């Protein structure tokens, strides 16, 4: 009875994907990084650029298991502001072989038209078509560029996982 009465603090996981250690930024991550959805349901996964500096362009190439997931929609993020006239946003996703390519650029090359900090690049809506787990990964072609079109080193590329379960 005494042992049953003994109390214990709740174990908490500090695993917010946007909570990237300072020595691993700039980073590009999925948020949430782990999802579990019923079969034929959808999950919205955000793609974030974390603690970037003077970024004017992004190419994010994401792979997923097309046997399990299907991309329903991809929406622009607010990294380069809410006004869509200031930026270009192109998405090319192919369920075979399961790749999404997002190109997101600031228009112009002035100093004021670069972005620093953390912001959402895009929101991707996945649909679970089959039971199983699919990883989400940024390929090596994912890159950030500054106003001079020079690549910015991405120190950390986050990974994601969507687990589709039988209802």
């Amino acid at each position: 009875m005494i042992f049953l009465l003994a109390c214990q603090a709740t174990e908490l996981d500090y695993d917010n994907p946007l909570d990237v250690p300072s020595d691993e930024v700039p980073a590009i991550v999925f948020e949430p990084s782990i999802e579990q959805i019923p079969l034929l349901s959808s999950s919205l996964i955000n793609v974030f650029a974390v603690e970037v500096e003077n970024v004017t362009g992004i190419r994010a190439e994401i792979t997923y298991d097309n046997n399990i997931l299907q991309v329903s929609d991809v929406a622009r993020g607010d990294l380069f502001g809410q006004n869509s006239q200031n930026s270009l946003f192109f998405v090319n996703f192919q369920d075979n072989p399961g790749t999404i390519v997002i190109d997101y650029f600031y228009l112009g090359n002035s100093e004021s038209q670069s972005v620093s900090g953390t912001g959402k690049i895009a929101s991707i809506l996945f649909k679970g078509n089959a039971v199983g787990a699919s990883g989400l990964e940024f390929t090596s072609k994912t890159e950030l560029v500054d106003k001079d079109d020079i690549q910015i080193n991405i120190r950390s590329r986050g990974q994601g996982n969507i687990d589709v379960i039988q209802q």
Partner: protein
Amino acid sequence: MINYIKFKNTLFKALPILFMGSLFAQPTVAVLDFAANGLPDYEVETLVERLRSEIPNTKAMRLVDRKMLENILKEQGLQQSGCTTEECAAEIGELLGAQFMISGSVGKLGSTFSVDAKMVSVSTGEMTRTKSVSFDGTVGGLLIEMQILAWEMMDLKPPQPLLLQRAGGDGVDKKVTVAVMDFDPRGISMLEARTLTDRFATELDATGRAILVDRRSMNEVMQEQGFDEAGCTSEECAAEVGALLGVEFMINGAIGKLGDTYTIDAKMFEVATGAASKTKNATYTGPVDGLITEIEILAWEMMGLKAPNTLTKKRKGTIVSETPKVKTPGGAALRSLLIPGWGQHYNFSSSENPSDATKRWLHFGMDAALIALLGVSYQAFLTSDDDAVATHINYKSATDTQQIESYRTTSLGHNEDAKASAQQTNILIFAVAAMHLYSSYDAFTNGPSGGQASNNKNSKFDLVYNPNLKQPELRFSIALD
């Protein structure tokens, strides 16, 4: 025929006895081994040895040493059991310098034992006394019969304890030997108390479960030992008297009067241990004659029997009869396990021991303080843990890095506080538990003992009064039933 040389040697050996015999006026007696008919020799030897050992207790005759008897018989080339005639016994008795010789036989027929003993006068060669005993039971029961036979062969009345032991038997519905002390009068006259005690004793006898020592025998023993019954109210005194009477149980008690209400308290305790075996009390309000019925009913209840309907129908007035719950160390321990100090209070209410009075509050106070601290600590734990979880939810949902860091720092802080409080709470839980266990242990070790715990059939140590040694003794007992 006995030859002369043997006779001379024997005479020299018997000289010390003859010399001793001249010093004391008591006649001497020698007991030959009895002939065994239908049971082993060793059993008969044991029985005769019991007869021999009882003879000195009679103080009527002196017993010739068995070794001496054996030596003389050996030298004369005789077997004890072979010397069955009066003439042989007389001759040997003459050699031993004994005035009397006892011989006899022990036989078994079915489940009945028979003992025949005869005493021969050495000087005349005549039989002076014969006794026969028939006994149904085990051979062990014959031991008492042999002791009684020793007294009867001396033409003396066997002592009461022996007769009571004989009456006790060894059957399934064993009767117990009981002596009833006069109930202590409180608010009534001594004469009334004696009358009611007599009625109680009579009814006790009527239950058929008790063998009572009559008042006269008890008074004789008490007077011989210099006891005054009125002054013998303590259990120790009663136990001593009981030991002298040879009874297993003593009953004493008190009859009180408060206004129109009568109270009867009776206690039966074991003489051997001094421990109370049964306590009964009754409170009665009504006419005086109804009290007699209550006393009679109490007698049945004391023997663990239901009073007959004829008695219960006679009941008058209002009766509050109860058997006080026997206080046990286990009961004290259980109480203190639940609430520290309760067991000490329970002990105090029975022992009036001042240390129990102090301890009950000390234990209760310490437990209350620990529980209060535990409550505070637990509340702090709940608050910190709730805060940590709430902040953690914000942390998980935040997308702003500064907010994330802020939430993480705050949540971690609360989480650390919660862990510290949880640890403190756990220590206090164990402290409270330890307090309960210690208090329980303390209540058990200082719990009611002796009479209050005597009904417990578990193995136990008891500090009991030994009336034979006239001092307390520590006794370990195991109930074998």
